[in-house]
């Protein structure tokens, strides 16, 4: 057992640094072609990097100021490219993979629907075969990056007579197709973040855009969500991004609040949680290094990380007093770091934070998953799981 992270003089760093010095502002395609976009993939796509090398690549890219491709095109790089590789045809690989990894085509995931909520498989968007096309009708919501995306991974119902999980299929849909309308969702902070509603009015999707087989949609979608859960559990308050517990403690120290015993004790609890979450994240990396199956561990970390993140930003907001209710007002002097991106704004991160226990599985669903998969508790009964989908709908409207 060894908790040390790869050292500064680790010889593996030299290779990465050399490449980055030769490519000071690498394009997405350069990164993808060098294998640094999905380093853990086998060649030619990646460099077959073991987790420590991945960690080194991430760190070195960060130092060189290179925006990581998995932040530019997260749905493609983190979630969907692997699925495309596993389930796609050769022609689909040829057409989609490199533009996705090179961040030349942004992807989005068309899964959640307004009526669905936690019951994702109950989705109502249909894809009806019509000659060599499918005709898609329905509405998606909470679609990250739909406003920037060229490609949408669509989950739609191709068989309405089958049980809800069985009737779904996945498609690689062109987001510029006629009939696709994207509307930003304004969250409670008043910001247009990256979420959208997507309206699908008789969108024609060529049949060769079917990903995998008809009926495999649920399996494809959920394997992607599981990847996402792991990716989302870093120590930053908002799904791994934004201020961390360390930032909070630094901020409270600089602003003089740590001398208040109540604040101090609360802050220490949050700091310890943050450190332990960091260790759990490293342990997950370590498990991958040791080729241990990952299991429901990502769900455990997200279950812990989401309220932890809320505590971080709530505590920062609380010490602001009434000034914290002024839009845009920050709790700490600007020298206190809080990462990059839109969640680096403490005030925005606070108002956004109710979402972290909602997005990508509510806290309730996560706790079910954790208890059922890790502890073997009985699964929540879903009386609609085996009904033909059409009958579920009839029961609801009755």
């Amino acid at each position, binding site marked *: 057992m060894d908790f040390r992270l790869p050292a500064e003089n680790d010889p593996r760093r030299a290779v990465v640094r050399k490449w980055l010095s030769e490519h000071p502002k690498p394009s997405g395609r350069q990164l993808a072609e060098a294998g640094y976009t999905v380093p853990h993939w086998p060649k030619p796509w990646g460099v077959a990097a073991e987790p420590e090398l991945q960690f080194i690549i991430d760190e070195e890219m960060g130092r060189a100021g290179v925006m990581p491709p998995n932040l530019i095109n997260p749905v493609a790089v983190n979630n969907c490219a692997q699925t495309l590789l596993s389930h796609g045809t050769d022609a689909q690989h040829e057409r989609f993979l490199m533009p996705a990894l090179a961040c030349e085509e942004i992807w989005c995931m068309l899964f959640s629907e307004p009526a669905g909520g936690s019951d994702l498989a109950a989705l109502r968007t249909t894809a009806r075969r019509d000659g060599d096309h499918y005709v898609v009708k329905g509405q998606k919501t909470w679609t990250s990056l739909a406003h920037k995306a060229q490609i949408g991974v669509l989950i739609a119902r191709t068989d309405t007579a089958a049980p809800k999980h069985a009737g779904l299929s996945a498609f690689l849909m062109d987001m510029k197709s006629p009939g696709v309308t994207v509307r930003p969702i304004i969250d409670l902070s008043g910001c247009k973040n990256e979420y959208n509603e997507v309206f699908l009015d008789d969108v024609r999707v060529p049949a060769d855009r079917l990903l995998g087989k008809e009926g495999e949609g649920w399996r494809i979608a959920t394997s992607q969500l599981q990847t996402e859960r792991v990716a989302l559990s870093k120590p930053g308050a908002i799904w791994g991004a934004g201020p961390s517990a360390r930032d909070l403690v630094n901020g409270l120290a600089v602003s003089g609040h740590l001398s208040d015993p109540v604040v101090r004790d609360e802050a220490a609890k949050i700091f310890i949680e943050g450190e332990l979450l960091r260790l759990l994240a490293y342990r997950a990396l370590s498990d991958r290094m040791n080729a241990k199956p990952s299991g429901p561990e990502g769900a455990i970390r997200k279950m812990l990380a989401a309220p932890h993140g809320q505590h971080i930003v709530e505590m920062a907001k609380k010490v602001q007093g009434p000034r914290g209710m002024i839009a845009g007002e920050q709790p700490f002097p600007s020298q206190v770091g809080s990462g990059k991106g839109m969640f680096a704004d403490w005030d925005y991160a606070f108002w956004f934070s109710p979402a972290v226990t909602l997005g990508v599985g509510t806290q309730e669903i996560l706790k079910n998953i954790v208890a059922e998969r890790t502890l073997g508790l009985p699964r929540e009964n879903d009386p*609609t799981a085996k009904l033909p989908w059409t009958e579920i709908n009839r029961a609801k409207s009755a």
Partner: protein
Amino acid sequence: MNFLLDEDHLALKQSAAVFLDKEIVLDALLKPGASVDQANYRGNWEKIAAMGWTGITVPESYGGLGLSCVDVAMVLGEMGRTLAPSPFLGNLIGTWALLRLGTEEQKQRILPAVAAGTARLALAVGDAAGDVADHSRELGAERSAQGFLLKGARAFAIDAAGADWLIVDAHNAETGRRGFFLVDTKSDDLTVDIMNWRDLTRQVCDVRLNGCVGEELAPLTPADWAWVRDRILFALAAECAAGTQQILSMTAEYAKERVAFGKPIGSYQAIKHSLADMLGQAECANVAVLYAAWALSEEAPQASLAAAMAKAFAADAYVDCTHRSIQIFGAIGFTWEMKNHLYLKRAHANAELFGNSRAHRSRVIDLAQQAAA
């Protein structure tokens, strides 16, 4: 002993409910990009004035309704329930301040106009950090030929914009102590700006005084300020308790309708138990506010304690329940187009105004110890 509301109270509450359900429409605030400017502050205020509530606590001898804090709880509760955007609260606070701190001449001069709805009062006592204790010197008063000249600033003044008279506290250079002053907002040496406040249903203002003239109020004892402060705490608590009850009702209704996995989400224990917790908080907040209302109405010895308990408990309950509400609504509850966030922001804002819950809890311990001694 009778904890039930009298017929009069119930009738007042009922008429307020009917009036506000009809008149208060928040739709404009639920459009993206909306600000407090869309809240129909002025229109609502005119209708409220027509109800006679501008002088709700003004004694009948000055032309008002002369109602008690229990009555006020009825009206304020309904305003809190509907988030009614209007300067009702700011005017009420200003009225309490003038009633307790003004001279007889000042009351006779101003209160009849307030009661008639032709003049509006507001109180401005917060420093830049929102502290309302009496040691803030961000505003100073110096005696001059024209009266006291006021220089400095006050912040977090509820409904100061559009008020005709402001009551401010200032460090009186002459006495070296806190004094209260009446300021005519028509003065050129005064600016009032609406803050970029998260609670869009309320105007909270920055006030700058650049040497404008202030009229001294009556000499101040600590008990005088406590009298005003307790009523402000009670008023904020009354909004919180009613808002908590309302968000509970909205959320319970949603949980009965929204279906997941073939069942209403309200049949899942996680949701059900969270709603039960919310109900417990709502019940406690409600009884805390009624107790404070009664104690203030009676000027009972436990009035300060009751007001501090009500503000501390009801504000925390409101914050917690509005957060839970969004969790139970799920992602839709997190969008601008739903009302949930208006309640969430009101909850957070009320919790921070006039001292946070921890500060009041600390006072509760002191007050309880005094009462026991």
